[in-house]
């Protein structure tokens, strides 16, 4: 599976001490040759008979064939969700809905290794991440929301709460299972039924989740999963019978969806792109800040909407910090995502790889200096080394456009005001990072940064209790916490 590890810079090999060959076994995953759509509690064929392949991006080998849902199939799914809502889910007491959600959470915990391996195979992210981040968070998300299902009146006191009904949800390829959990758990906890469309390059963990949904005896039609690409997505967005829509993906597509939804007054939440500033003050705990910056942009190959993709380092320590950062990057291991020692996995698709490459070239043309470590990359598969662009200015395209890859652009600032000005000067507003040991400065910056999630002296931390979402063109609505429930209830009193 894949190629052997690229040489990294740690040089432990010089002593005959090598990491590697800690390859997680794929034997516990049973991938079917072909998958149908999951509608009304069962796997079914498409009316149109169309299908597509899903690849392992680290080898470009095909993993399976997945059915493409036609508009008719989407219609079938929505009608199943409606019937199930009216027949079962609407009448079910919250305590019982909770029981189903608890069961799903437990199954995710029990089959966690299997799901993690599948996630890595289908999407290219390192097994270390799918095992230690994606899976535990997904299970926790179901647990958290299970507990809310029979307590909603506490989150929204004195309101006559009602679910929307049938909810359409479209999720991206960067955290396929986790995004499914973020969408499904609150929707079900609040009493809605769902039609979910996973991303076309990463359908497999959603389809495995469908097996779990069957195993826990969830009433048929409460969750329906329609795999497909743009056409399937449009059919869902445009469907006249959905009562609410939730989308996570690019800002570009988000805007198209908003155009459609706003005409119909369709309740909508959007979680879109970002170009987060990662601000380092000179008095920060610098060794840890370096780790934070590394994690902020290279975690999940930088395929993260809230990635700290713009380093804003105080000019007085810029040379020191950048030099140390480059040395640290030399130690990152790019390679077989199934190897437990791998830090950076494969780029999710050819399209994404081309986009990253193109934008880095733009950056160089604009005048940035590029740094890439000396690691060698495997021959097959989609790979991009961790990259740093220095000498970047606010008006460069690479400082403004989301690259969505393992590429960090570096800018400097002199004072807190200047950091703030550069940080906020963007149409995006999803997240931001601040490193300083000065508490009052953290609060001062946090108060003024126009971003929905602010990490101080840490980065990329997620929790089901902590609301996540953006300002400005990074979207609206929150996921997680009490605030995240609001999107899935009518008459919630405005806490959204």
């Amino acid at each position, binding site marked *: 599976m894949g190629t052997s590890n690229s040489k990294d810079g740690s040089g432990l090999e010089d002593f005959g001490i090598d990491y590697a060959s800690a390859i997680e076994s794929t034997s516990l995953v049973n991938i079917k040759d072909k998958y149908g759509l999951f509608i009304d509690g069962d796997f079914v064929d498409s009316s149109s008979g169309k299908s597509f392949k899903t690849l392992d991006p680290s080898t470009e080998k095909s993993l399976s064939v997945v059915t493409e849902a036609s508009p008719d199939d989407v219609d079938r799914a929505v009608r199943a969700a409606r019937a199930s809502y009216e027949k079962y889910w609407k009448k079910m007491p919250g305590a019982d809905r909770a*029981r189903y959600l*608890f069961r799903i959470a437990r199954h995710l915990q029990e089959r966690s290794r299997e799901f993690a391996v599948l996630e890595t195979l289908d999407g290219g992210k390192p097994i270390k991440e799918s095992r230690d981040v994606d899976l535990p968070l997904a299970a926790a998300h179901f*647990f*958290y929301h299970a507990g809310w299902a*029979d307590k909603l009146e*506490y989150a929204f006191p004195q309101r006559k709460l009602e679910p929307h009904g049938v909810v359409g949800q479209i999720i991206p390829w960067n955290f396929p299972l986790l995004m499914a959990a973020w969408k499904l758990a609150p929707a079900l906890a609040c009493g809605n039924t769902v039609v979910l469309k996973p991303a076309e390059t990463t359908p497999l963990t959603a389809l495995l989740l469908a097996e779990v949904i069957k195993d826990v005896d969830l009433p048929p039609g409460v969750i329906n999963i329609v795999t497909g690409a743009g056409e399937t997505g449009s059919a869902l967005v445009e469907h006249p019978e959905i009562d609410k829509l939730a989308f996570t993906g690019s800002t570009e597509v988000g805007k198209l969806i908003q155009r459609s939804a706003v005409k119909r007054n369709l309740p909508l939440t959007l979680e879109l792109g970002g170009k987060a500033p990662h601000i380092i003050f000179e008095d920060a705990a610098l060794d840890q800040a370096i780790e934070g910056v590394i994690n902020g942009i290279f975690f999940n190959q930088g395929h993260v909407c809230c990635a700290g993709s713009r380093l804003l380092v105080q000019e007085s320590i810029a040379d020191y910090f950048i030099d140390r950062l480059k040395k640290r990057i030399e130690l990152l291991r790019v390679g077989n995502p199934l190897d437990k020692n791998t830090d950076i996995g494969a780029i999710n698709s050819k399209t994404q790889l081309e986009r990253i490459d193109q934008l880095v070239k733009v950056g160089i043309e604009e005048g940035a200096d590029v740094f890439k470590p000396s690691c060698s990359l495997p021959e097959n598969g989609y790979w991009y080394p961790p990259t740093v662009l220095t000498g970047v200015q606010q008006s460069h395209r690479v400082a403004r456009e989301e690259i969505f890859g393992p590429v960090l652009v570096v800018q400097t600032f002199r004072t807190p005001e200047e950091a703030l000005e550069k940080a906020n000067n963007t149409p995006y507003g999803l997240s931001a990072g601040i490193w300083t040991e000065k508490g*009052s400065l953290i*609060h*001062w910056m946090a108060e003024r940064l126009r971003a929905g999630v602010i990490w101080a002296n840490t980065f990329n931390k997620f929790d089901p209790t902590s609301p996540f979402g953006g300002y400005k063109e990074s979207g609206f609505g929150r996921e997680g916490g*009490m605030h995240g429930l609001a999107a899935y209830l009518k008459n919630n009193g405005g806490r959204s």
Partner: protein
Amino acid sequence: MTGKIPITKTYKLFIDGVFPRSESGRTFSVNNPKGELIANVSQASRKDFREAVRAARSAQRPWASKTAYNRGQILYRVAEILESRKTEFVELLKSIGVDSKAATREVEDSIQRWVWYAGWSDKYSQVLGSVNPVSGPYFNFTVPEPTGVVGIIAPTEPSMLGLISRLVPAIVSGNTVVVVSEGHSSLTSVTIGEVLATSDVPAGVVNILTGDQTDLLPWMVGHLDVNAVDISGISPKTDLTLLEEAASNVKRVVARQVNEESLELISDFLEMKTVWHPIGK
């Protein structure tokens, strides 16, 4: 003819994760409705109470330091164990005189109540805490914290639902408890102790003393290392002037109706902490 004679169960105290007999060596008898002996149960003394408080105190900080998620998981798993021992509990309740249908109902309600409170572990601070808009450049937040060691007089009726209704809201936020359980309800209490002993709930978080309310209440109320007492389960005949000793260390004294699923039962055992921090460059 071997193995046909039932092995009768011994009911002892539950302190710090183990089942010791009372240091006093005393027991009291519990009979079934026909007047036949079910068991001789250990009768806790004030010294047992003292030991139980020590265990509860040492267990309190570590229990409160676990993440809310972890506590919720641990408590949820207790519910799973209760579910798997449902039949046993139904039979136990029947043996002390509860009719079959009511017993089943009570056990199912108890499990549901346990699940309900377990689900609050990572939510109550969101509902009860706040960020306060003080007039000045300060970040000001209020966060609830567990009060510490809580003494609980368990209601005698209903024996299972009554105890669980008091116990879980107290511990879900990180408090540890010493329960006093009287009469036939002591059988249920000890069995719940067995469930806890085989769960992931750390030793000392829940301690159960079977014995006489009147004997132990003054020690509970007067103990300076007990932060709060829940006296909802005291018998109506209790002389309420006994409660005055609670003022010796300004204990929080709570008395509420038994059959409630309510956030108030959690907040009864919370302290609100407010923190200020300047906002500035």
